[in-house]
């Protein structure tokens, strides 16, 4: 048997495949065995109860989707009393995901959610920072650093910073998150997009704009994963558009230590466990003892055609 386990700082996962926040819940236990997954990542919650964005909340775009779910949240109390106990029945590490509008609220929530049963905290810093201009924390290195430092001092649990593809400063934001004390980066969240129903001339999402996820996002978040893996020394968790084994291999080769699968679970709900099996079969067929020789193995010094380079010299 190939050893698929990967280390994310102090945390060891039995395999590198886990769900992406917001595309997974208790409900998936009705279709597959959650213990087969490397980790279990909850939907982002806020401290207070929230309704989320108006419907329609999803729409389809060519081969992918947009969503403007927002963060409907039953709040921290419900999470501690219901969600957490549910996941205690599984041995895959359970990861909470949190969000807040200000640095202090964020840190306080982080502290209050640092309870037994939570193996790591994913901090969704792709949400708007209402103290500044409403731009997400992860849009800028400075706001990323500020929030991460405060979060770091609020918990001893591993902190995963979830970055946004909407920023123009991916590497700088990644470095700020590392400097602020992140144990790992999740790269990345959805990309702000839009679709219009030409018949009614209304935006297809009740919130006008929403986040792109699914296969269309992959080349972008794969590029970000590569940039982040080059820029920081903490592990990177690739996320965006994963739909098959090849996608996972691309992320690992680009430098990701683990991956999150989101939208594809909506299309094929059992895909994550299928992918675990396929990854094991691949590693076996390639004669790999574990995944270490795969992770970060991109041959980026040899991408260009030799003929082209020689002709120039």
């Amino acid at each position, binding site marked *: 048997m190939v050893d698929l386990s990967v280390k994310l700082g102090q945390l060891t996962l039995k395999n590198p495949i886990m769900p992406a926040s*917001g*595309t*997974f*819940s208790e*409900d*998936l*236990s*009705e*279709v*597959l*065995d959650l213990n087969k997954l490397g980790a279990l990542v909850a*939907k982002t919650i806020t401290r207070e109860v929230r*309704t*989320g964005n108006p*419907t*329609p*909340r*999803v*729409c*389809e*775009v*060519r*081969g*992918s*989707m947009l*969503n403007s*779910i927002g963060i*409907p949240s039953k709040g921290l109390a419900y999470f501690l009393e219901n969600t957490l106990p549910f996941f205690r029945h599984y041995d895959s590490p359970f990861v909470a995901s949190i969000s807040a509008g200000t640095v202090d609220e964020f840190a306080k929530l982080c502290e209050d959610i640092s309870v037994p049963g939570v193996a790591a905290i994913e901090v969704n810093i792709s949400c708007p920072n209402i103290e500044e201009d409403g731009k997400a924390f992860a849009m800028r290195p400075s706001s990323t650093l500020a929030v991460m430092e405060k979060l770091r001092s609020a918990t001893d649990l591993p902190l995963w910073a979830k970055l946004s593809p909407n920023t123009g400063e991916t590497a700088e934001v990644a470095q700020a998150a590392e400097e602020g004390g992140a144990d790992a980066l999740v790269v990345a969240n959805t990309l702000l997009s839009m679709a219009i129903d030409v018949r009614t001339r209304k935006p297809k999402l009740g919130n006008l704009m929403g986040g792109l996820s*699914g*296969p269309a996002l992959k080349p972008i978040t794969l590029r970000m994963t590569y940039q982040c893996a080059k820029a920081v020394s903490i592990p990177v968790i690739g996320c965006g558009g994963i*739909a*098959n084994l090849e996608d996972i291999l691309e992320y690992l080769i680009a430098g990701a230590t683990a991956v999150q699968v989101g*939208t*594809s*679970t*909506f*299309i*094929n*709900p*059992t*895909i994550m*466990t*299928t992918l675990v*099996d396929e990854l094991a079969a691949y590693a076996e067929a390639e004669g790999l003892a574990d995944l270490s020789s795969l992770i970060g193995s991109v041959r980026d010094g040899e991408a260009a055609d030799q003929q082209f380079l020689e002709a120039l010299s």
Partner: protein
Amino acid sequence: MIHQDMDPASARPEAGLKAFEALCTVKSNTSANDDYRLLVLEAPKHILNCQPGQFFHLLCPVTDQQQPYLRRPMSIYRFDADKGELAFLYKVAGEGTAAMATLKPGELFNVLGPLGVGYTIKPEWQNLLLVARGVGLATLAPLAQEAARLGRKLTAICSARSEAALLSTEHFRSLGAQVISVTDEDGSSSVENLQTLIEGLIGSQGVDAFYTCGSNRLLKLLQELGAKHNIPGEIALEQQMACGLGMCQCCVRPFSQNGEVVHLRVCKEGPVFDLQEAMGW
């Protein structure tokens, strides 16, 4: 890309699993009338433990012309565990259903289900009244079957644009239901006429529960009549879906429970809801 004929791991029914991704084989896919098509599938037994009102989430095929991405929710029109058969009655509305219409006998079709919460028939509900329109009747067909199995009396008011567009009335009749057809064509489907008709039934034979789906007009009418005559009821509702399993929270609708507004997921708490809690739109 995730493929239509990727073998879904959970096709093997495992302990504790409730919904299954399964590959079915198309038996037939024919037009039922001008507007609707009937897709009949050969389906594995373990996915056919269904309740009337539940639905499946369908992975429509990808072709040169249609590239649907998300699954499409579709009510169960007919299921038969013994025969290993599952059927959907659908209207070609857009890309996904247009792709469904291209399915040919022998082809594979990936379905996920059964999903959601179906209709209830309480022991004390002996006289059931079903009022539906158009494809909504599809959702109600398995209810008629279940009512027949339980030996309840069922009256179905079937509403459509025209006599020709009336669907499933034969199906309802064959299940022993009393069928009343109303159409726009002859004006009999108007709210006033329906109100008279239903109050007549309440007076003559008694009605213990209402069942309906989809139409805001019918919802309002039945809510009023239900409140007035103290008759409970259920309604099946629709909403855009992504996961179909309760995970993504895209399919919520507002309901009024004990004077408070709550948002419930059509795929998980529904698609069938209490008639009086539903909110008009």
